[in-house]
């Protein structure tokens, strides 16, 4: 176990984030947002803005910076601002004011007079359900509706009608914002035809590519730097509005430009998690065997229809064995801020519905909910014959039940003074994925090594993981390995997203390290080298000859007069995908206390037991999972964007968009069962970034039911949901 390498820098304020860069001559941009939710900007009067002190430039759809829509394979198309006059949501970027100081830019921006041709906005998911559209195919190419029926069964309705026990219910989840601590920001500098952008994001080479496309510049002219990222969670996968505008304005003005969104602007001018409605029907035999599952999902989506929260496809498609299953996904286009990936997109809200429904079925059957889950555990996703590569979910539940005192749970919970106490559980799953990645491994003459890839460490601990896997692959101590990340000049590391980075970059290290060792051995045995003509091998950071002589790799490099040697290794998903299905698994446990009179829900204990393959660095892995579980508490009890009929966000700041404070969070227990999954990737790790949040909201709602007898089918759960008079 290794402490994170970046912790001392971060806790002492020495880590330089994107907006901590202040190149000479820098000026400041302030983004102007729309104040209506639907319509067209007919005019923007910027006369007063131009006359304001310090103002250098005002950009609007009428006097714009030219930007082209960039595309990349993971994120698809990324919207670029100020290219037309359409307004599709309130809080949409429609202008950019650049001035000598931040205060001047902000004050001048407040003088912009905007005229709109307004149209009536549609902002309510509930009101839009009737006009829902079929969703486009999901990430894996599945159509919006997937049907699996046993032979002889004509429809899912027939299968449900034939089921001895049926539960049916509709669940809703609120829209959310990532609300990362670091607001989206960028500092852009043009020097002799080359752009350098300092900006937090989830993949520096992806950001460079997207900026190059947007600016119509060659990729070689764009350098993206992000060694530290103050949280991303999916919200910094796409290049941000401040990055596009700062880069284009810097080119236009010939001065470095800094642009940062305010906290309030982050809520609308970036991305959010969609709201969902989910209707579930489960049919079972009296012994709990699942025979039919129907999961219909609706997701809000912006008018661009750019991103859908796929709740049924990402949960019910795979989680339980059932002979009959229909899942569907629809979308409801609304005048709301853009939706995008957010920690466990699909799985987080999807698991609230599915795992609540499973609990409802357990209640209906009078069966222990863990036993019900065990009985229906899948060997492979329904209708697919690719079995799970490595699944130890039952063991997670077994360890969890023992540790959490599940056997003490009683139907109807227990009472402690004026507090009603209940226990709840839920399954967590998150697919094991990886993306193409390249990593350079360098051996230096001073006996140190470097592991370098563009990528990003958005706070996940990837930097330390690179050092540990590098050390492991080079058979040297981690202290001798310098990890480098967050610079598009380095080999392409892809994206820190989808819980993939450890598996992707780690596998590439395991390709690069043997290559650089081979080169070292070739050099060592070459004519004139210390081991000329000898048979040599490598271990413990040393080159060894059969006669017992040995030298460190640094000694060898110095002897052949080389300061360093390097190799780049690449990895990508391959034929394993045609052999198995891959997922991480977990068992979530929560204890809640609900006040008998005033009905506040307090989470008093939490435990998550996870099967995520090999754990490379236990401390940050535990922190990642704990952070996910805490976010699950937030989703269950606190978080939700409240969008009014006119598109105004009623709670777009940290005073009113609630996230948990320390007092809301009990000790969080995280346990691992460690079965390296080398069928998935050579490292054996499956990623822990997202699975921590999955299932938590359901476990809490299930615990609330256990404590109070009230089933709440919406999150966040509020006091009024539990008041019976």
């Amino acid at each position: 176990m290794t402490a994170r390498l970046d912790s001392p820098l971060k806790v002492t304020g020495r880590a330089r984030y994107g907006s901590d860069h202040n190149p000479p001559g820098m000026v400041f941009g302030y983004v102007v947002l729309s104040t209506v939710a639907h319509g067209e900007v007919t005019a923007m009067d910027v006369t007063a803005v131009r006359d304001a002190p310090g103002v250098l430039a005002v950009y609007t759809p009428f006097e714009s910076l030219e930007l082209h829509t960039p595309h990349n394979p993971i994120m698809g198309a990324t919207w670029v601002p100020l290219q037309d006059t359409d307004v599709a949501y309130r809080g949409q970027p429609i202008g950019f004011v650049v001035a000598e100081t931040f205060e001047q830019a902000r004050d001048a921006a407040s003088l912009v007079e905007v005229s709109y041709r307004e149209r009536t906005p549609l902002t309510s998911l509930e009101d839009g359900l009737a006009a829902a559209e079929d969703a486009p195919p999901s990430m894996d190419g599945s159509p919006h509706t997937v049907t699996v029926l046993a032979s002889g069964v004509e429809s899912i309705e027939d299968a449900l009608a034939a089921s001895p026990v049926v539960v049916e219910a509709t669940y809703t989840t609120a829209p959310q914002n990532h609300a990362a601590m670091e607001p989206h920001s960028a500092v852009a500098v043009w020097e002799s035809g080359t752009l350098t952008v300092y900006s937090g994001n989830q993949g520096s080479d992806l950001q460079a590519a997207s900026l190059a496309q947007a600016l119509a510049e060659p990729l070689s002219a764009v350098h993206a730097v992000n060694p530290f990222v103050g949280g991303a969670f999916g919200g910094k996968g796409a290049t941000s509005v401040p990055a596009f505008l700062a880069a284009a304005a810097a080119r236009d003005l010939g001065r470095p430009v800094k642009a940062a969104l305010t906290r309030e602007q982050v809520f609308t001018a970036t991305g959010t998690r969609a709201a969902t409605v989910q209707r579930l029907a489960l049919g079972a035999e009296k012994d709990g065997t699942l025979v039919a599952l129907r999961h219909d999902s609706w997701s809000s989506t912006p008018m661009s229809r750019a991103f859908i929260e796929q709740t049924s496809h990402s949960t019910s498609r795979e989680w339980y064995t059932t002979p009959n299953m229909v899942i569907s996904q629809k979308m409801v286009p609304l005048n709301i801020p853009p939706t995008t990936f957010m920690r466990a997109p699909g799985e987080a809200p999807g698991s609230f519905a599915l795992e609540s429904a499973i609990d409802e079925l357990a209640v209906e059957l009078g069966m222990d909910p863990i036993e019900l889950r065990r009985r229906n555990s899948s060997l492979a996703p329904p209708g697919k014959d690719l079995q799970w590569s490595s699944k130890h979910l039952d063991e997670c539940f077994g360890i969890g039940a023992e540790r959490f005192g599940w056997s003490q749970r009683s139907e109807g919970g227990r009472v402690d003074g004026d507090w009603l106490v209940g226990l709840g559980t839920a399954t967590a799953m998150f697919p094991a994925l990886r993306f193409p990645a390249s990593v350079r491994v360098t051996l230096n003459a001073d006996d140190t090594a470097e592991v370098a890839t563009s990528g990003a460490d958005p706070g996940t601990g990837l930097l330390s993981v690179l050092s540990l896997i590098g050390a492991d692959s080079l058979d040297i101590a981690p202290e001798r390995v310098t990890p480098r990340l967050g610079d598009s000049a380095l080999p392409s590391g892809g994206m820190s997203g989808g819980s993939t980075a450890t598996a992707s970059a780690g596998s590439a290290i395991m390709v690069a390290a043997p290559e650089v060792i081979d080169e070292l051995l070739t050099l060592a045995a070459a004519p004139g080298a210390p081991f000329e003509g000898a048979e040599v091998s490598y271990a413990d950071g040393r080159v060894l000859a059969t006669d017992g002589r040995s030298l460190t790799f640094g000694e060898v490099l110095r002897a052949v007069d080389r300061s360093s040697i390097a190799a780049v290794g690449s990895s990508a998903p391959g034929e394993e995908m045609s052999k198995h299905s891959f997922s991480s698994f977990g068992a979530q446990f929560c204890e809640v206390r609900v006040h008998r009179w005033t009905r506040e829900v307090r989470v008093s204990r939490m435990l998550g037991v996870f099967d995520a393959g090999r754990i490379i660095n236990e401390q940050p892995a535990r922190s990642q999972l704990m952070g996910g579980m805490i976010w699950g508490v937030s989703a269950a009890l606190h978080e939700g964007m409240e969008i009014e009929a006119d598109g105004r966000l009623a709670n777009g700041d940290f005073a009113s968009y609630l996230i948990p404070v320390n007092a809301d969070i009990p000790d969080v227990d995280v346990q691992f069962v460690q079965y390296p999954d080398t069928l998935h990737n050579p490292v054996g790790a499956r990623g822990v970034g997202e699975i921590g949040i999955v299932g938590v909201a359901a476990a809490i709602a299930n615990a609330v039911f256990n404590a109070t007898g009230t089933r709440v089918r919406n999150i966040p759960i509020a006091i009024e949901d539990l008041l019976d008079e």
Partner: protein
Amino acid sequence: MRPFELTAPETVDAALASPGTFLAGGTTLVDLMKLDVLTPERVLDINTLPLQGIDTTDGLRIGALERMSDVAAHPGTYPVISRALLLSASQQLRNMASIGGNLMQRTRCGYFRDVSVPCNRREPGSGCPALTGANRMHAVLGTSESCVATHASDLAVALVALDARVRLVGSDGERTVALADFYRMPADTPEVETDLRQGELISEVLVPRLDWASRSTYVKVRDRQSYEFALCSAAVALDVQDSRIVDARVAAGGVATVPWRLPSVEQALRGAPPTQETFEAAAALATEGARPLSGNGFKAPLLRRTIIRALREVTEEDRA
């Protein structure tokens, strides 16, 4: 935030002589200046004025510039006051915020705090979006067609329960006013929030001696366990002798446009035994005249339950 002139008068007389907006802890004023809700041209930093001191010789006298954290920690403070303070804001804010400033804090209504939308309290006659908008946090008592914003102070609820008075100093001299009379319900003039006259300053808070308020508490119900305003709160003090409630003080917060004293509830408690039955019957009177909005109908039952909970908490030993 707009440019402003900052001065720091050294005496109360100097502060009263110069027009401007008083700055103490700044936890409300600076916040609202950043939002352009308040745009004072002159700000008077009054932190060096001699308005400190906590005196417990006869009741409680608190200088207006005492900080919330110091008053909460003072051994002579009644439990209901101490708890109300400790359940407010965060430790950092309590270290900065003054008692006078706490009583003068402005509503947390989201429309009041957003200058891009109408608000009768901010711009008289402009309208009230809360009547039909996001009004879950808003008031059900003391409201009018022009304003439904809640009063945000926890401390004021506790003080109103204890019949506290405020001493006000102005260039024409000083006067004391019962805190319950100090706050104005919105009616047709929501912009008039208090009885404070132009140029007047709160110099101290006076709480009459009430020995039995050692049996008192403040229950605050909210959406998270700390650093959040009340959905509903109750300040309760009970005098129980020989299994009878001799006297009672009950006030509510988070549900009304001003700190809300509940004399009918107090009356129902007096003379009755401290039982669940008594508490429920008394609490039922708390929501007389409540006018729920589209999103806050739950506040009426929640208020009744919060009062019951507070009464149970201060009588736990009697009922055991």
